[in-house]
């Protein structure tokens, strides 16, 4: 039986709920969980002021409610267990998480999994800007783990990403993979502009054609061996990828030439 947090009152201002993680609630009774603090704007409040907590933690926390889109930092720094959210979520979902899984049935706001190092986040709906990215000023974003977005993501997906996997079934915004250091980003839908700007290493794989920066140079059209591994893996996670795209071929562009020039953008060219 999972631990169920049912939203009973909409927050008046954004709620910061970094205590809602398996790490914090392990060993707590529902009443104990209700006593954990949350920040409601500048007020220190309790989880119980906004959620009714029932059930028993068996590895899964389930959040339900219509106003979860105003709840930030769900699953921040979590290292294990599962958080399942029926609804939307606010900013900083799974920020800095190192393990476990987060499943969101609705949409997520900006900063999904910033600077995460492990675990998996799966969003059935759309994600905002800065998915899997670095916070401002930092030179390293996501360093491991997986983010799967079934809808669209917006700008700066994987900004300064150092490792891990991001897969977007829908479109991604501008500057996908900007300043990437390594890792893989798959986009099934349309890419925005300036993909991979400043990337040092890493791969952005697009299942559609796209317009690229003048500093990405075409190398060849081929079928990169490792892609199939990823496609199999992603299919296993419920993403649909048609056979032609699994077979390829792909155009390989190397860049960014203003940087190390060791990154690649692969565009499907079947």
């Amino acid at each position, binding site marked *: 039986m999972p631990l169920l947090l049912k939203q009973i009152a909409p927050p008046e201002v954004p709620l910061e709920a970094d205590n809602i993680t398996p790490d914090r609630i392990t060993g707590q009774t529902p009443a104990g969980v209700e006593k954990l603090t949350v920040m409601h*704007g500048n007020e220190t409040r309790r989880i119980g002021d906004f959620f009714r907590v029932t059930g028993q933690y068996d590895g899964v926390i389930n959040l339900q409610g219509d106003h979860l889109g105003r709840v930030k930092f769900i699953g921040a720094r979590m290292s294990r267990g599962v958080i399942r959210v029926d609804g939307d979520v606010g900013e900083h979902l799974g920020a800095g998480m190192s393990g476990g899984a987060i499943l969101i049935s609705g949409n997520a706001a900006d900063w999904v999994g910033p600077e995460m190092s492990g675990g998996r986040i799966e969003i059935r709906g759309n994600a905002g800007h800065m998915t899997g990215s670095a*916070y*401002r000023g930092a030179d390293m974003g996501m360093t491991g783990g997986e983010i799967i977005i079934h809808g669209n993501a917006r700008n700066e997906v994987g900004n300064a990403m150092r490792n891990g996997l991001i897969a977007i079934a829908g479109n991604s915004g501008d500057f996908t993979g*900007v300043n990437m250091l390594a890792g893989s980003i798959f986009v099934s839908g349309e890419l925005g*502009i300036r993909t991979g*700007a400043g990337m040092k290493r890493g791969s952005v794989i697009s299942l559609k054609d796209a317009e690229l*920066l*003048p500093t990405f140079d075409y190398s060849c059209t081929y079928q990169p061996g490792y892609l199939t591994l990823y496609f199999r893996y992603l299919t296993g996670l419920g993403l649909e990828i048609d056979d032609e795209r699994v077979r390829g071929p792909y155009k390989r562009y190397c860049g960014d030439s*203003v940087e190390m020039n060791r990154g690649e953008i692969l565009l499907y060219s079947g």
Partner: protein
Amino acid sequence: MSGENVKIVENATCTFCGCVCDDMVLTVDLDQKRITKAKNACILGRAWYAEHYIEEDAPAAMIDGKPASIDEAVEEAAKTLVDAKFPITYGLSDTTCEAQKQAVAIADIIKGSIDTTTSVCHGPSGIAFQGVGESTMTLGEVKNRADLVIYWGGNPAESHPRHFGRYAVTAKGMFTPRGKKDRTVVVVDVRKTPSVPAANQFIQVKPGKDFELLWALRALVKNRKISPNIEEITGVSLETIQALVDKMKNCRYGALFFGMGLTMTRGRHFNSGALIALATDLNEYTHFVAKPVRGHGNVTGADNVMSWQTGYPFGVNFSRGFPRFNPGEFTTVDLLAKKDVDAALIIASDPASNFPQAAIDHLAGIPVVSLDTKATMTSKLAHVAFRTATYGINTAGTVYRMDDVPITLRKAFDSPFPTDEEILTAIKKRVRALKFPKNQAGDKVPPGRASQKEHWKH
């Protein structure tokens, strides 16, 4: 009688734009309380001074549109702010550093957010700075040394009219004794602005392709390849780009100035970042600097005060009892448009007239405290509205020029209205008293450098 009681103020500082020219010679008619002449001022500065008059009969404070005493209004403002769970303080570019310091203190005490007009001006350049740094300079270095000056995405002829003459184009300096003759000036823009005639070369880039052009320049500076269809992408031919690269690499001291053509268009901070990175790259070959051409008088001061007090230049939130920074989350347009905030303190700015409509709509629905020298759209919708003295004309204080050089203001004549610093200091004292009723001995830090202490009880 007008003309009898005249005062001359020398070396006064114009705070209209970020040039912060401090060589004004103001002729002040003390009877009329008007500045009748502003020698050395540009067209904007002349208007700034000429249009400055005191609306004697305007109330210094209003609560819900009705005149109130300053004490009542301070009390009401303090209550409004202390009651809020997520108050935002915004504006601050058109006021002194002394007032800005008080505003940050208030935000700290009430655990709110604080943001300045930087966020909708060169905020993206600030983000870029945090990512790539910047090779930069004070404006006197450009005047003394620069033999190549490039303006990108800005129109100083209209926004900063004395930038050319005083600092960067015709200015004569140590190694540029002949002024314009000793330097090459290039303007890059999407349209032929009134700044173009001042330049030796105009490069017209396709709208929205600044980043691509800057990126191509960076690649060529590093002797890397770029796509052959660069002209098709950017509207600028490869020959032109290569020639500019050669010019940049071979100059003695190059300067890149950039405007909101970069920060306000798609790409935002990456556009600024590309330009800054280009200047950085060029230091491999010669000395090169870059600088955003910043706007309102003391917006740079706001950045500086915020940075030293909180560690961050704008978009700061104190709700957890310490400063946090995150543009897009704690910046004002976002906080308003996402309906996150429940009260606002707006200082010397008019978001109700120039923000996106969604943000204006939320502002209209929450209690607002405003401080401004004139009636604005924001003061009209404010719950508590203060009318304050104009900085640099009716107040002393400190402002920072766009290149971080601090300059002292000289007051030309008195205003019947209190200064921003005075009102904010009073609000700070009241919010502290309301927030920490048991700790009234707490304020051991003297109030900010008192720039003006007289007359605020009228």
